């Protein structure tokens, strides 16, 4: 299954259930549908299962249930950044290479691009997000806002049709937050954003899922 640049996809999840080993079930049969190009907010108190659900949706955690992307079922427990991309809550965890451009090129290289083509794709993505000047910087030495943008570029460089974001506006100053939200609003793909930032949800998302204790309590149109 391949997706062209800017392609939007619909994602249907049914019966997503997950429990950490030796503990009670944490996510209890979550069902939801993400329309093509839709922006979905995921809100709820700490520990309600938002981040765990995102990890299950990417396939990083092996949950039971089905994930169907554009009519094709994704295998459980097999993450694939080319289909569903995840920007982690802590952007530092995503910046493990010596320079930002290498971090952004890491995904495209794993997709089989040559080092030269991957570098070109990475530089293009950095330019798109307005951080081309940070290409040769060490990701760990950037500000929080710059790290968040670099992490976003690293995911977008794989051009996933569905983008998941875990607390994208946490610990950002007003200017960085506004810039990030502008970028998210302009992105063409489908998007799920887990956050406590209700104002950001209102600005970016058209629908909101409210989670509590591993379940979806309600769905609201914003």
């Amino acid at each position, binding site marked *: 299954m391949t997706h062209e640049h800017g392609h939007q996809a619909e994602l249907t999840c049914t019966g997503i259930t997950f429990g950490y080993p030796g503990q009670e079930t944490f996510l209890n049969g979550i069902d939801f549908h993400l329309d093509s190009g839709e922006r979905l907010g995921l809100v709820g108190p700490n520990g309600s299962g938002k981040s765990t659900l995102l*990890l299950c949706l*990417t396939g*990083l955690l092996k949950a039971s249930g089905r994930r169907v992307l554009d009519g094709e079922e994704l295998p459980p427990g097999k*993450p*694939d*950044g*080319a289909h569903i*991309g*995840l920007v*982690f809550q*802590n952007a530092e*965890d*995503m910046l*493990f*290479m*010596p320079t930002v*451009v*290498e971090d952004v*090129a*890491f*995904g495209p*290289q*794993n*997709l089989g691009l040559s*080092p030269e083509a*991957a*570098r070109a794709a990475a530089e293009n993505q950095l330019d798109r997000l307005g951080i081309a000047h940070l290409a040769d910087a*060490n990701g*760990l030495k950037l500000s929080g806002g710059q790290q968040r943008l670099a992490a976003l570029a*690293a*995911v977008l460089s*794989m051009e996933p049709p569905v983008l998941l974001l875990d607390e994208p506006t946490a610990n950002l100053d007003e200017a960085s937050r506004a810039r990030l939200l502008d970028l998210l609003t302009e992105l063409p793909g489908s998007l799920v954003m887990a956050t406590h930032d209700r104002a950001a949800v209102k600005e970016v998302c058209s629908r909101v899922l409210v989670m509590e204790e591993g379940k979806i309590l309600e769905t609201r149109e914003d």
Partner: protein
Amino acid sequence: MISQHQPYLLIAASTVMGAVSIATLPAASPGWVAAGTAAGGVLAWRIAGTRNVLRILKGAAFLGPFILFLAVMEFFRGDNQEVVSLAGIDLPVPLIRAVSLLLKTFTAVGLGLAWGDRVGAHGIARSLHRVRAPAAAVATTFLATNFLSTLAREWDGVRMAAQARGLSRARYAFRVRQLCGSLMSVLVRSLWRGDRIGWAMRARGYTGRLPEPLIKRGAVPLADFLLPILAVAVVAIAVCSRTMQ
């Protein structure tokens, strides 16, 4: 020039020190060797600073096979004396020599790092490329070297948290105990951090084979060859002179 060719400088420095020990130290007693090299280690630590210990280890990790080679040579150097008394404790000579050699190498690496800035992942990757190391080894070393910077930051965080709560005013014994505790804390944090980095890698398509680092290989300057050639020559001369005796 030094910062560009730092890995070679470190290899050369530790090689020369190892060679000097092989060629000249039979005349000295192991006790003096151990004391001298321990002092050198302390000097390197003081020059490089505690927060650079991980950097020194990074250099030592890069020199690992080389250190092993020299340690083996020290072990089999041959000596009639089997045990030496140091501060009233009988210690086997090969053990003392191995420890002294490691300390000497540590000193050389520490001084090298204090002299230049640090051994960067790119510098090491370039060096490995130049000696035609397999791409998988280059990529793994590249990532591992960079992870040490992450560990150094974790260590800084733990250290500053302890100092902010008055550790620098505590008694020395308590500080040493806290240091050991901090090392354990950094180990645990590094495992947790490594786990999350692993997730981030898998989420971006990593399936067990690291991509080739994006570094410009470029032409190989003559200076890159001179230092290791010089180092190898010194070892060869030292070993030959010992053999002829």
